[in-house]
């Protein structure tokens, strides 16, 4: 009796020790897994990209993954993934994916190719028959263009600077790890400065509310559109806090928010219109950048291509004139382009603090003159007058102010 009690105690002690050891190993595994994820500031992203992310595993280790890193001078890759199952097996498979992503994606390939290649490699030797849903995007930091491909993952939500929220129209391919012949298609979107893309795993939408309902995508859309601050940091905090306070996660829960924030562009929203203010450096490079940013803003708001062309042309003509006059002056000056967008029109306002100068007061060049008498210059203002639905010059508070209106043909 005494012996058996002693045996029992020894066995129990050994079990407890073994359990403690396993627990300890799991903790190490968890910290190794967390170390695979980018920490704030750890990936040295260019200043044009803002990211914010959080991952909460349901168990100590999990099968969710997010990542983002610089691919080359002009591109940043981002991804979110969810391995079938939870716990140790999912964590190991996730580690394989993290490694593959780093290898395959650094080549600068399009996301559909990246998914194709990762899939091909994971299908080999996948005896455990695990699979992964993944969304993967490549952001061009010069113009806010994103190519995005998805393998069975929930479509990301785009919250615009205006505060509207909608799902991306992704064309989902099969989850990766199953079928080596699976094909993926990339779609393209353009972000305007102030827009934020929110990627998530189903741990968010499938978290349980107190009333027994799931959190759901609709609720996530509402939460995002109600947020006052649309920055990636604020949206992430808002989503994570809302889910934590109102629902109980049953699965790994991951959110990744990303926005494009070119230096020199700010934005603000009023009741009637959305405005972007571009303050470029006074140079041809500054003008070209302004054109690019303007084009992205208008493309992101589905403005018709020919109207984007007109707006860009007007901006170039007016700004190159300003650069020429300020360059000649050779001192510390400023210029800006304000782009205001309403459902019916585009209002562009160019301001500079150079000497008072009204380009519209110049005599129009004689376009029908004999070629030998024809002037080579003066054509820019002619273009502006012809392309704009209205243009008005004023001199206000020491600034030249040129206001151009274009009617939108599509809404």
């Amino acid at each position, binding site marked *: 009796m005494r012996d058996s009690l002693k045996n029992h105690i020894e066995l129990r002690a050994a079990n407890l020790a073994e359990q403690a050891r396993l627990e300890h190993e799991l903790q190490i595994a968890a910290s190794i897994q967390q170390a695979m994820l980018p920490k704030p500031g750890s990936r040295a992203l260019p200043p044009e990209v803002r990211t914010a992310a959080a991952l909460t595993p349901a168990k100590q280790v999990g099968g969710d993954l997010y990542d983002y890193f610089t691919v080359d001078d002009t591109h940043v890759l981002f991804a979110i993934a969810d391995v079938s199952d939870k716990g140790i097996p999912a964590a190991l498979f996730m580690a394989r994916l993290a490694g593959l992503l780093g290898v395959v994606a650094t080549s600068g390939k399009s996301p559909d190719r990246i998914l194709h290649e990762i899939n091909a490699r994971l299908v080999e030797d996948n005896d455990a028959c695990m699979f992964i849903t993944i969304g993967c995007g490549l952001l061009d930091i010069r113009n806010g263009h994103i190519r995005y491909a998805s393998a069975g993952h929930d479509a990301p939500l785009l919250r615009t600077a205006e505060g509207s929220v909608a799902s991306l129209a992704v064309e989902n391919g099969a989850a990766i790890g199953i079928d080596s012949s699976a094909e993926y298609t990339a779609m393209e979107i353009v972000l305007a400065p102030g827009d934020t893309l929110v990627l998530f795993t189903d741990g968010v939408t499938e978290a349980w509310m107190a009333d027994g309902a799931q959190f759901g995508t609709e609720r996530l859309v509402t939460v995002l559109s109600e947020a006052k601050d649309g920055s990636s940091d604020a949206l992430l905090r808002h989503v994570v806090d809302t889910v934590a306070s109102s629902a109980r996660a049953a699965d790994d829960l991951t959110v990744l928010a990303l926005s494009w924030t070119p230096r020199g562009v700010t934005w603000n929203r009023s009741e009637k219109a959305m405005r972007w203010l571009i303050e470029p450096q006074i140079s041809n490079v500054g*003008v070209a950048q302004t054109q690019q940013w303007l084009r992205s803003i208008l493309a992101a708001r589905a403005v018709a*291509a020919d109207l984007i062309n007109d707006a860009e042309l007007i901006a*170039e003509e007016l700004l190159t004139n300003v650069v020429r006059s300020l360059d000649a002056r050779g001192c510390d000056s400023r210029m800006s382009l304000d782009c205001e967008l309403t459902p019916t029109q585009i209002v562009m306002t160019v301001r500079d603090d150079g000497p008072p100068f009204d380009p519209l007061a110049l005599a129009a060049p004689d*376009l029908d003159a004999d*070629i030998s008498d*024809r002037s080579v210059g003066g*054509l820019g203002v*002619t*273009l502006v007058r012809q392309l704009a639905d209205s243009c008005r010059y004023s001199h206000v508070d020491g600034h030249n102010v040129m206001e151009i209106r274009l009617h939108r043909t599509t809404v």
Partner: protein
Amino acid sequence: MPLEIVAEPSNPSTLVLAGRLDSTTAPELEAVLDRVLKKAPPRLVFDLSKLEYLSSAGIRCFVRARKALEPGGGKVAIVNPQPSVRKVLDIVKAVPAGGIFKDIAELDAYLDEIQRQVRDRD
């Protein structure tokens, strides 16, 4: 996409422009024109089928070529501009009516016609 200029050693002299011709890229075309205009070709063709964007800085190049060649009896022709580029050319009358052709074939037919007229006159 920046500007790409291909000078085709064909008859007539042809410059194929692709991408964007604006205040940033126009100096590249100006530099090419410095060389081309020195030779005073009787005909200079700008093939714009791959040109996506044109601003006044680019139009100045076309006007400059006309100013250099036309007084000596030369001719500048523009071939196949995309609609957005055509709109800009038309607004500032960069080349006279009849100087823009929808494709190389139309230009060739026109040039053949001129040659025939010259032959008939002789």
